[in-house]
């Protein structure tokens, strides 16, 4: 039986063999691998791109103090982007499952409709959740729009939920029982983090300060967005740094949400604030790509 990290190695190797850049995780907090610039920005424009990376994804509201066997504040996704999507993409995907030791002829695989939409990113796509013996193990999406922009080359996005997948492969009932490497359990590596961040996210994060920080990052982002048009040397313009501000805002929104500080009415408004930043940045990035080309 492969350990957690051995399974990761195999998946990365598999996509390496299919021409993907193997990136390392992005170093700003994100709620999903989709939000990393390697996906959100790279899917825009006419340039083909192939990339795969593991992305620890933080969802403060999903924390359960390490007490729930299947829910995590931070889980890991293996994110694969193939732009444009190859014709045999689903077969390639199934091949990746065989590469990590699944004999598909002995299992039940179903592709069930599940269209993905992210209001904060102005993004949506068409796709499925992939069910393995009744367990959702992957989200598969053909992106149609990102940052409010219709895509030139439709990318396929494959998002493996790594904890679920490996728990399935190892036959354990709690993600904390996953063998990370010989003699080391997932709990040994991550349980303290789950507990402490649950305490912080739900009980101790200073709501007033979080609101102020959200305002600060938003202001920084807006200021940058406004400067682009008159900036003489477009290639030097820090669109990527602008996007980091968007990610900060998005994460602060999630924290405030977990803290119960955002009423349902306010919610729509804050989501729109973040989406405006994301859409604005996407536009700059697309424009900058054209300028550079």
């Amino acid at each position, binding site marked *: 039986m492969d350990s957690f990290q051995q399974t990761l190695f195999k998946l990365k190797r598999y996509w390496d063999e299919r021409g993907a850049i193997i990136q390392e995780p992005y170093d700003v907090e994100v709620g999903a691998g989709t939000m990393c610039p390697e996906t959100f920005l790279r899917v825009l424009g006419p340039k083909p791109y192939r990339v795969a990376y593991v992305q620890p994804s933080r969802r403060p509201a999903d924390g359960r103090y390490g007490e*729930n*066997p*299947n*829910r995590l504040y931070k889980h890991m996704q293996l994110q694969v982007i193939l732009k*444009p*999507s190859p*014709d045999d993409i*689903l*077969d390639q995907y*199934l091949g990746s499952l065989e590469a990590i030791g699944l004999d*598909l*002829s*002995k*299992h*039940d*695989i*179903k*592709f*069930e*409709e599940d*269209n993905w939409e992210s209001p904060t990113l102005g993004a949506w*796509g*068409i796709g*499925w959740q992939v069910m*393995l*013996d*009744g*367990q959702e193990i992957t989200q598969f999406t*053909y992106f*149609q729009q990102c940052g409010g922009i*219709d*895509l*030139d*080359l*439709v990318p396929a996005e494959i998002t493996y939920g790594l904890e679920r997948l490996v728990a*399935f492969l190892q*036959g354990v*009932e709690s993600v904390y029982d996953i063998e990370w490497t010989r003699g080391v359990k997932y709990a040994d590596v991550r349980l303290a983090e789950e507990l402490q961040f649950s305490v912080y996210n739900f009980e101790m994060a200073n709501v007033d300060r979080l609101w102020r920080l959200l305002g600060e990052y938003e202001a920084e982002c807006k200021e940058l967005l406004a400067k682009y048009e008159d900036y003489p040397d477009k290639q030097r313009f820090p669109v990527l740094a602008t996007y980091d501000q968007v990610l900060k805002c998005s994460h602060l929104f999630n924290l405030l949400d977990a803290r*119960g500080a955002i*009423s*349902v*009415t306010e919610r*729509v408004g804050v989501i729109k604030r973040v989406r405006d930043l994301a859409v604005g940045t996407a536009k700059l990035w697309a424009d900058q790509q054209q300028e550079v080309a």
Partner: protein
Amino acid sequence: MNFLLEIGTEEIPHWMIPGALKQLASMNLFGATPQVDATPRRLVVRASNLPERTPDESQIIKGPPLSAGDKAAAGFAKKQGVELSAMTKVGDYYELRKQIPGRAVRDILAETLAPTILGIQWPKTMYWTGGKTGSRFIRPIRWIVALLDDQVIAFELAGVKSGNITRGHRILGSSSIPVTFDSYERELRKNFVILSADERRQKIVTEISQLGAKLDADLIETLTFITECPTAIRGDFGPAFLELPAEVLTTVMRHHQKYFSVESAPGKLAPHFVAVMNTSGDPEGLVKRGNERVLKARFNDARFFWDVDQHKKLADRVEDLSHVTFQAKLGSYLEKTNRIVKLVEELGGNARAQRAAYLCKADLTTEMVKEFTDLQGQVGGLYARHQGEPESVSKAIYDHYKPLSMEGEIPSTHEGQLVALADKLDTLRGCFAVGLVPTGSKDPFALRRAAQGVVKILVEAKLDYKLDDLVTGDLREFLLDRIKYFFREIRGFKYDEVNAVLASGCGTLSDVEARLTALAVVRPTEDFEPLAASFKRIQNILKQAAFEPNAVLDQALLEDGPERALHADFVRVRDAAKVETYPAALGQIASLRPRVDTFFDKVLVNAKDERVRNNRLTLLHNLLTEFSTIADFSEIVTSGDQK
């Protein structure tokens, strides 16, 4: 010639497939009948006896008049691409008899199949190649088989060339299978694809029945179109989970996992489930174990939610509803709760109904409802019972979203009926007040369903509220529409009967129903329709005379004979009808028919003496108004009417 078209796609959402097949079934195949089939990965049309060619046709094109001369005719001929000599003179005009040769059906299909395929209407489409101007379909098209007498009909669509190669089951089958019209279905079967939806459905029903599953038509349909090779297996879960409410267990199994539940006795769950795989078997029990593990985790979650939710009673959650928005312009669920409580009180609800109204939305703040939204109301009811609320309160909360559909049951208790009624009325009043009115097919707040629920509860629970006391203005009209719909479509009354009864006013709906029932009984009797025709005549006469009722009938002005006789009978029937049941009253009214007929035969309404004339119009007017309180007979469509 035999025709085979297979559109090979990535997995199409199950619920869209029947709609697509319906469209393909109306495909033009030159007189041959299309036979359609589908799995999630293929839409298939087959047909036999297609003609080789379409028939030759001759067409007559009218040219310029002879008077325009040969020059004009020559110009016309040139435009048509023929010599002047091809034109004939018929009457005063030149004429061209054009022979349009038939075409090879193969050639036509090669041109039309791609647009036909792309012309299928879907609820939502995508593009996957060629950017946003590329072809749109429900999911990417990956292969196409198009054969006419086993020769490929050559065309290209979204970069895919048609051919004779199909693909089998994703995992178990070959991905490259040459086929002919005759071998097609057989080859698919060899490659673990059951083409016929009927056969897959039958296989599912047979197998799940053998495994003791509780049949569920919707789920069977879903699984029929989510699989190419359905095979049922049975799994188990720990009996300790049976302590959780059956509603929760069933929802997890059915909605989250697409499993059938198993019962040990009617209404009593057994610790088993039946799943339908998309593969041929599970010899090592791996699929069974995997599904069991998933279900156990799901049930554990549910148990976790249940336990966490008990830390705070429903009653203590009501204030939290101030953070849950009902609708931006209509405030929070706390405000809605307060309105519902008040409304239940106004409707005469007792203390228990008011208590249920107060608690009914509190479950929206529970983890269980956040996870299992479909169980809203039910969860509140279960928690209320668990937390010691009286049975009538918990039952009312449990039921207050009912009826969920036109066929659904209404709440079974009086308290539940009042809370359900108040909840729906509040939604309707609120949305109409801020202009959120359904338009066309758009009805985001499900107001039609809410209105239908109001009608169904009022009628079936025989609640004595008058429509006008509950709603006014546009909302009244909206409800009237639903009332008509209900009595027509659900109760099966004829549309003109419904119109006639409602034209006489809409008091309580049980009164409407009683009047309708009476009308439907009396209608087939021999005097009724002629009398209805007479009423229509009276209405026309009054209209033409622009009659304004302003005087009391003067008995002295009545002419002896038919007029006085009619009046006498009118008074008798009017007095009798007041104390009779509706059917008897209608029978009485119908018995007036001979009198009315004689009156019109013998008496001239348009008398020269204005006083007499007015008196007669007054008599007719009284007749019409007095006898239109049960139903407005002029709305009844009689054989003399043109529709």
